[in-house]
């Protein structure tokens, strides 16, 4: 039990995918302009990341490993992720137009989120089990969502600030992300796994 909790704390805070491992920076910078959209993105990512880490675990364990085709993991994970994302998008579009409106264009964007592939690959390299894989994916997603939402609320403030012209937009966003990463260094050595 403690182990699972530690996985969560580790992925959310200490080894945060965005601010510590610097994965998934493109959607982090791209969709953090508005709070509403970032919340939508956060929800979509959480769902897809959890599901895809589960699916990639299954693919790896039950298809690749038995045939000794571990070296195909990257390409097959990409396949898995793409399918999960597409399928989720279609289902959500049909079943809940409201949710689809909230998630909107973010669902397909997740395909390009390297954190998703990163989680799948790290699950393999860390030799996580079934539950650990899901928790690891979920924790990573929560960590991503957490900083994304906070960052977007902050960016709304920065966007109306009197930032020098050359630093407007993404430049100041990167600086802010850097300062946030600095703040996250406070969690260093909090949990060792």
């Amino acid at each position, binding site marked *: 039990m403690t182990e699972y909790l530690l996985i969560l704390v580790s992925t959310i805070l200490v080894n945060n995918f965005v601010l510590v491992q610097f994965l998934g920076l493109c959607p982090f910078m791209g969709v953090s302009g508005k*709070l*509403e959209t970032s919340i939508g993105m956060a929800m979509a990512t959480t769902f897809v990341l959890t599901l895809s880490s589960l699916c990639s675990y299954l693919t790896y364990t039950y298809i690749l490993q038995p045939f000794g085709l571990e070296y195909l993991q990257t390409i097959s994970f990409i396949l898995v992720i793409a399918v999960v994302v597409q399928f989720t998008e279609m289902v959500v579009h049909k079943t809940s137009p409201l949710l689809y409106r909230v998630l909107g264009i973010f669902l397909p964007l997740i395909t390009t989120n390297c954190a998703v592939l990163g989680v799948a690959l790290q699950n393999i390299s860390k030799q996580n089990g079934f539950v650990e894989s899901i928790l690891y994916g979920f924790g990573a997603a929560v960590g991503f969502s957490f900083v994304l*939402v*906070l*960052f977007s*609320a*902050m960016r*709304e*403030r*920065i966007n109306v*600030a*009197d*930032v*020098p012209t050359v*630093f407007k937009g993404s430049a*100041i966003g990167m*600086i*802010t992300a850097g*300062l*946030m990463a*600095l*703040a*996250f*260094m*406070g*969690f*260093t*050595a*909090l*949990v060792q796994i």
Partner: protein
Amino acid sequence: MALLRITSPHTQRAGRRTAWVMQMVILATIPGIVVQTWLFGWGTLINLMIACITALLSEAAILAIRRRQVGFFLKDYSALLTAVLLGVALPPVVPWWVTVTAVAFAIIFAKQLYGGLGNNPFNPAMVGYAIVLVSFPVPMSQWLGVHSMVSAGETMSFMQSLQAIFHQLPVIDSYTMATPLDGFKHKDLLDSQTAFSSIAALQGPSLNSWLWVNLAYLVGGLALIGLRIITWHTPVALLGALLVMSGAFHLLDPTNTATPFFHLITGAAMFGAFFIATDPVSSCTSNRGKLIYGAGIGILIYIIRSWGGYPDGVAFGVLLMNFAAPLIDYYTQPRTYGHKKAKTGLKVGEDN
């Protein structure tokens, strides 16, 4: 008859301008500065001088580059305030370039790049502090000890301080010792009781010196509350959360944790609660928001002190909560007159 045409109101409360607010906060740090100088020597004052000069120069330089009116913005005293807060937060004999780096980084990156006063999302002083803490951990951990405890048996003289800061005092090690928090952090496998009896930094004189420093900042902070420059919400929430956290864990595991009192009187607890966390620009807006914000810092301080990699967590706690402040603001709006409930979040179009 040339009549002035402006919008209402046509009158303003006299005196309480932004510059005045900044001046008052600077003045309120004086008790703390005096105590620090008295206990740890002239280093603090020299640091302050270096910090102030660096701050003014870097602020002026950026303003000049941005072609703003340098005089107008320098007169708001905000750069000086950042310098003062950093000057007292850095160890007294830290080399001069550490101070300069910290202050310049704080002013340029944490403040002016965001557009100057009022626009910075992070507390500049804490950004400066964190950056040197992460970059130069060794000089940052060299706090002077009280003279009765260090091997030199005396405080540094003014000249010695100067030498230590600008050159390199060969015997500096004989004046320094770990802070109580540092000492407690590195007790390793000792239980609390043994640690308090065996580690030098956790002895009476060392603890007392930090008690004095914290009391001095408490006095300054209370003065600020009295002047209505800050409200009680943030400091009370911060100290309360620290108290509750440390109290709860001390009750659960008294052998390995320190008492709540220890947490409140060591490190930058009071300084952080009254001078850093209350920075209005980077903190929360509403009273409810301030309570959450303060409590968040308190909890983070305890977590980082107890389990993290750094002995004191004020800087990181403040930065992390700065990070969360805009979101907290969205969810802690006060209930407006004529509305049944307070509005939260951003749901546009919803009304009550």
